């Protein structure tokens, strides 16, 4: 029964070997307002010692953020992981004190594109662009 491996066509598995839900360890997504696109993260103090037991993905994130602040979206881009997965990873890493998270400066609230365009137009007509 072990012979004739293939008269019928071979099935090739193209999906990633490690499924994403294993990478996150089955943890839930953090609440929406945490770890927005522009939230900045960096490595915490003495994190490199603890990093040895991390999964390869978490270690990759640690490497990325070890010498400075990096936005969550950038972490996602560099690791090629979906944003939600990165957020789960970051939440876990923050929980174990590996990273420091800095919330983005909140958006200026009243800024409105039309209004600004109008102001700009006004300035242009006043001073000449």
């Amino acid at each position, binding site marked *: *029964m*072990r012979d004739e*491996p*293939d008269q*019928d066509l*071979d*099935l*090739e*598995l*193209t*999906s*990633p*070997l*490690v*499924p*994403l*839900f*294993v*990478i*996150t*360890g*089955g943890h*839930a*997504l953090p609440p929406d307002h945490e770890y927005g*696109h*522009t939230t*900045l993260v960096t490595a915490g103090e003495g994190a490199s010692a603890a990093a040895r037991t991390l999964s*390869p993905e978490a270690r*990759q994130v640690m490497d*990325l*953020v070890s*010498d*400075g*602040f*990096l*936005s969550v*979206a*950038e972490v*996602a*881009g*560099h*690791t*090629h992981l*979906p*944003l*939600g*997965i990165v957020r789960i990873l970051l939440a876990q890493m923050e929980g174990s004190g590996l990273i420091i998270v*800095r919330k*983005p*400066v909140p*958006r*200026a609230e009243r*800024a*409105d*594109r039309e209004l*600004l*365009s109008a102001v*700009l137009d006004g300035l*242009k007509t006043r001073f000449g*662009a």
Partner: protein
Amino acid sequence: MIRDALIWCLVAIAALAVAAAVVLFVRSRGLGEKKRRSEAALTQQMHAAESQLAYARAELQKHRDEYEGTIREAEQAAEESTKAVLKGAARFLQSLAAEQTTLLDDIQRKYGGHPVLADLLDVNHANAQMARKAQGIAVMCGAPLGRRNKPASVYDVVRSAQGQIRNFHRVEIMQQGGLALKASAVAPVALAVAELLDNAASFSQHDAPIEVTFQRVQSNLCIVIDDAGVSMSDEDRQRATALLSGDIVPQLSQLGNQPKFGFPVVGLIARQYGFKVDVTGVSRYGGVRAVVLLPEELWTMEETPPPVEEAPVANIRRVESRSQNTSRTMHGLPKRGARQAPIASVPDSPAARTAPRAPEETGRTSGRGLGAFQRGTLSGRNLDTPSFEGFEDE
């Protein structure tokens, strides 16, 4: 005179007696002869009967053997045809499950930032378990496994196996070295380890840990799975050893209503791909220790190529522009330059959101002007708001 007469009488009597004796003797001889003859005839008849009986017995045995042979052949044929049917169905399931896994992965990446991701992960988990069952049935029917064409670290192979069981979070993988499996061994070892993990999970308490460690023993690589369940009886152990060695291949019809094909599947693929599995050990928790022993043909010491190769810049740009709505991270530097990457103070217009990479249409001059204005407001605000550069310097 009287004396003579007496003598004659005696002679006559003697003669009579002799005659009688002769007659008797002759007669008894005749009888003996007759008896011998009839005895001989009887023995002959008996022999004949015996040989007839033996013939009949032989005939009976022959028919019995033929009958049994026919039954066996019929059973074999039934088994083969059942296998053929099931094999076709299992292969179909197998390829559907593989297709679905790929699809789900794409969807997960597409909606990576969306709350629906949590549910997608659950669906993918269920699908991974289904794929394992489909693979198991296919193996039992003699179909080939799906194959992978890239080598992978043994850590990732075990994680792949981990994803194929229900309570995967109980699995703890203790070490990760630079040990890698060759491409041909990735799929079979993942399936075998998944079956062993499933076995470990179902024969121990639902929250007890399952530990996976790796050991190099001479030229072999061992994947050791320790559970904290109940240990097996000697009888179970013997049966498991026989199944895992691939010596006994239970027929499909013997698997019963709630088929357990974990060990038979492991035995089959172990034999097929040339590794060994042993479950006779006792784990450090008193449960079962399962060991997958991989000979040197199946693994290497080489560091596997990192799962994500150095990303082409265009790729990064695409991903980030989608997730961040601007192209500012196209600089691609881990270190942020604050002035080059201002925090958006202007809500993005819907047009920019849908087509972030077409700035030309919106008018180059007004865009540049807006940028200048934005930088101005930002530097103005920097006076009272601490910039993140301050944090960076700390």
